């Protein structure tokens, strides 16, 4: 039985190359390229694995500025069937509540589907909210930290494995449902250059604005967000002794210096 899957992804600044301004201590975001959130690639790989086993289609959905199109092209290059880019100023500056509402309405438009898949969190805000919030708007059962899934024979159900702090649990969920894929599981496949080029030329990517979704803009974007950033202050530094020993010439002396100091601290 084919499984039709919707994968939600986010277009994020590549935080692994973001630098900190040494004088102000703030992040330098200018000129930093954006990428598909790396933890979402694990969710895409999870979806590709299910399609290989059972057939079906995979649609990737991103709510992002127009530049995210190249990210969706990348996912088509990885094997996703099509991309939907939701982009409108009316959706901008949303917190996770208002974001999840727009995503839920877009996903509803893409239904019928069997499964909605999310990455565990984003590298730029790490909330882990969206999967549960979208499931709440749509009234769908959901589970986080999923590593594996299989279709239960002859039944419109999935059997999934998920990992918690000290246990591995197996669940059965009726479809349609939502799964949040555990980060670092389902290592994403590499994408070949030829696929990348073809995706760039041929990728079936739709762009949806609020002309498509027709949402009440008082419940989207900044206006629809229950939370606001009141202020941002530099993280206070923890007072440390900052004592230093140059051990490049004599490692043994450096070791003695450290252990003697730790002994004074009452640690040894």
């Amino acid at each position, binding site marked *: 039985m084919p499984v039709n899957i919707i994968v939600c992804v986010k277009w994020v600044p590549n935080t692994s190359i973001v630098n900190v301004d040494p004088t102000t201590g703030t992040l330098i975001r200018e000129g930093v390229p954006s990428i598909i959130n790396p933890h979402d690639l694990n969710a895409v790989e999870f979806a590709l694995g299910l399609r290989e086993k059972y057939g079906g289609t995979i649609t990737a959905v991103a709510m992002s500025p127009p530049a995210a199109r190249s990210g969706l092209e990348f996912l088509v290059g990885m094997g996703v069937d099509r991309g939907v880019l939701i982009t409108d100023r009316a959706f901008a500056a949303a917190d996770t509540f208002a974001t999840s509402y727009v995503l839920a309405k877009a996903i509803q438009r893409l239904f019928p589907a069997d499964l909605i898949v999310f990455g565990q969190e984003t590298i730029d805000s790490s909330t882990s*909210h969206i999967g549960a919030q979208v499931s709440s708007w749509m009234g769908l059962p959901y589970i986080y930290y999923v590593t594996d899934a299989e279709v239960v024979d002859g039944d419109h159900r999935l059997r999934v494995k998920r*990992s918690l702090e000290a246990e591995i649990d197996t669940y059965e969920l009726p479809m349609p449902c939502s799964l949040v894929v555990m980060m670092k599981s389902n290592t994403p496949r590499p994408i070949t250059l030829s696929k990348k080029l073809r995706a760039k030329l041929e990728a079936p990517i739709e762009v949806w604005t609020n002309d498509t979704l027709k949402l009440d803009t008082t419940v989207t974007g900044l206006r629809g967000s229950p*939370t606001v950033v009141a202020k941002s202050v530099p993280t206070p530094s923890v007072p440390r002794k900052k004592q230093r020993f140059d051990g490049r010439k004599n490692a043994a002396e450096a070791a003695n210096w450290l252990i003697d100091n730790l002994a004074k601290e009452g640690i040894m």
Partner: protein
Amino acid sequence: MSVTTQIPAKAPLLKKEECKGVMIFAECLDGSVNEVSLQLLTPGRKIAGKLGVETTMVVFAPQDSKLTEAPIFYGADRVILVDDPRLKTYYPNVYGDVLVQIVEREKPELLLIAGTLRGREMAPYVANTLETGITADCTGFEVDEVTKDVLQIRPPFGATQLAHIRTPKRRPQMATVRPNVFELPPRDETRKGQVKLESGLNIPQPTIELVSSQEVKKEEIAIEKARVLVSGGKGVGSREGLGLVEELASEFDGVVAGSRKAVDAGWITHERQVGQTGKTVKPTLYVAVGISGSAQHVFGIREAKVVAAINTDPEAPIFESADYGIVGDYREIVPAIIDRIKRSRH
């Protein structure tokens, strides 16, 4: 199958002026309240004190268990107990729906949930069902003197700044709280508090079914509980390079951890990652080996008592966040430290 999506209400579901008090959800595991939930009584009581309100802990547990005692001993004024066999197994939307009903009855102004894996899974569902905002993984709280709103503090990406998040109109204000950032309050077995047995709740039939649960045996102490942590970063160069880090950890009777770069390189598992995108740790001694000391990494060791660092680069930022820094190649320094510890033992 078609689905419908709920339309958000224009007005807050719970009126701000009707909401009062601090509520904490207690995650229960293996017959006791998870310690990281009890840690939330530290910020919870402080906020309640400033607002002049009570702190209530919600516990899903059998009546005859001792689970209602711990919240009171650690500082809660009240416990709301839900005793129902249908809550024996945790399902995020079932637990969530029950907690939503308790919030609708009690109308707290603030709801805190420990940021465990289960907590991070359930809390956004609760917030969304109540149509209120939520802040993830908070590391601090402040009460706004004028509005009496609770500012939910968290580091956005980079950890160089702390964002103060407000929920100006909707209630309850909600946050998950980063484990181990707050100390467990002192235990006082003479404290008394009210225990209210909640009844008449609509406990939904789970649509999800837990088929089996397999315990994963941990050979070692988790990094968040370790007294000494020796942590490897990009500078150790390879999985093999981590061998010396492991050896040093064992000499200190400690546990091995790592930076994000060591985890991304696959030398160490994510559950041992220290830092903003990993865990907050509070060892007596933290030894950073070949870790440059990004703001995100340093954010995770704020609670460490003493920090030692070994790095070849005298300009590495980790030295600004260390008590004792050694400039040098870890391949020479670490064996020398191991040798010194061994000698002093004889």
